[in-house]
């Protein structure tokens, strides 16, 4: 059996405001639903307006990872239903990302240099936060303070061969992001750093990818 690991890392960018509105991202010690406006609440009629610094931070990462910045990238809607998703779609560059084809160098398990290829980086907004009430109650509680927080999704090729390599990759990536001052490790807590393993465990001819990504219906233009 062979372990093959690719990663999708969601990095919360250290901007002062959310991706599409002027609400402050500094909500960690505050009460629920106190950093919200018509836009990040998805109130009818509100419109998104793109945070320039989030794009600059994304580009900074793209340059640092020696990526090809695309002439045109596009925000589009990823439609799906979930109670933490205020508009029933996420605005994301999923389809036409900010940049593609980069690299990060790490040490492999034998201590040799190894290149991990970066597939793409793109910007997207975070949904709100669900608190699942335990016990007999059968409902969720929602806090939309997180809704609209800018995320940079960094996707790698399946180039890692052990959990130790993946750990070294993440440490290196984190160091780079902190040096670039686009990521604030102190804010980490619940929300700073999320990683999804797209690891493939291959045995013989069978392979499995997990976890499944969240259901998406279809893309459509964001305006």
């Amino acid at each position, binding site marked *: 059996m062979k372990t093959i690991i690719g990663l999708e890392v969601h990095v919360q960018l250290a901007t002062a405001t959310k991706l599409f509105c002027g609400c402050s991202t500094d909500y960690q010690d505050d009460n629920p639903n*106190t950093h919200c406006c018509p836009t990040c609440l998805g109130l009818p009629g509100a419109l998104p307006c793109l945070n320039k610094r989030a794009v600059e931070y994304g580009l900074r990462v793209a340059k640092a990872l020696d990526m090809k910045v695309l002439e045109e990238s596009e925000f589009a809607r990823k439609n799906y239903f979930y109670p933490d998703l205020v508009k029933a779609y996420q605005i994301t560059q999923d389809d036409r990302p900010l940049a593609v084809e980069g690299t990060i160098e790490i040490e492999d398990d034998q201590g040799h240099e190894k290149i991990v290829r970066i597939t793409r980086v793109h910007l997207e907004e975070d949904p709100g936060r669900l608190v699942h009430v335990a016990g007999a109650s059968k409902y969720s509680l929602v806090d939309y303070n997180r809704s609209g927080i800018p995320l940079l999704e960094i996707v790698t090729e399946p180039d890692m061969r052990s959990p130790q390599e993946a750990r070294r990759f993440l440490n290196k990536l984190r160091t780079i992001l902190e040096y670039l001052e686009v990521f604030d490790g102190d804010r980490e807590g619940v929300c700073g750093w999320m990683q999804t393993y797209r690891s493939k465990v291959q045995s013989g001819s069978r392979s499995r990818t997990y976890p499944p990504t969240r259901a998406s219906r279809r893309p459509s233009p964001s305006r």
Partner: protein
Amino acid sequence: MITEKDIEHIAGLADIGISNDEVPEFTHQLNAILEYLGILDTVEDESTPASGTANVFREDEPRPSLPQEAVLANAGSTEDGFIKAPRVM
């Protein structure tokens, strides 16, 4: 042609409830629309989709958020500053 099964599937994707007795009527109406939309088959695709859009940015400067009461005011039910939603688990 869209079948009644298609309609049920689409309604499911769109999370709109439809009752069994509505299915035939919606199927009929949707097929009539699709027939009318057949005219689009004759549109020749032009190769250059000019978007005609430009970058518009907002500076990263915080602006006041709504007071919590205003955020919660329209919600059907709330609890301790949270908005109540159906359970997803």
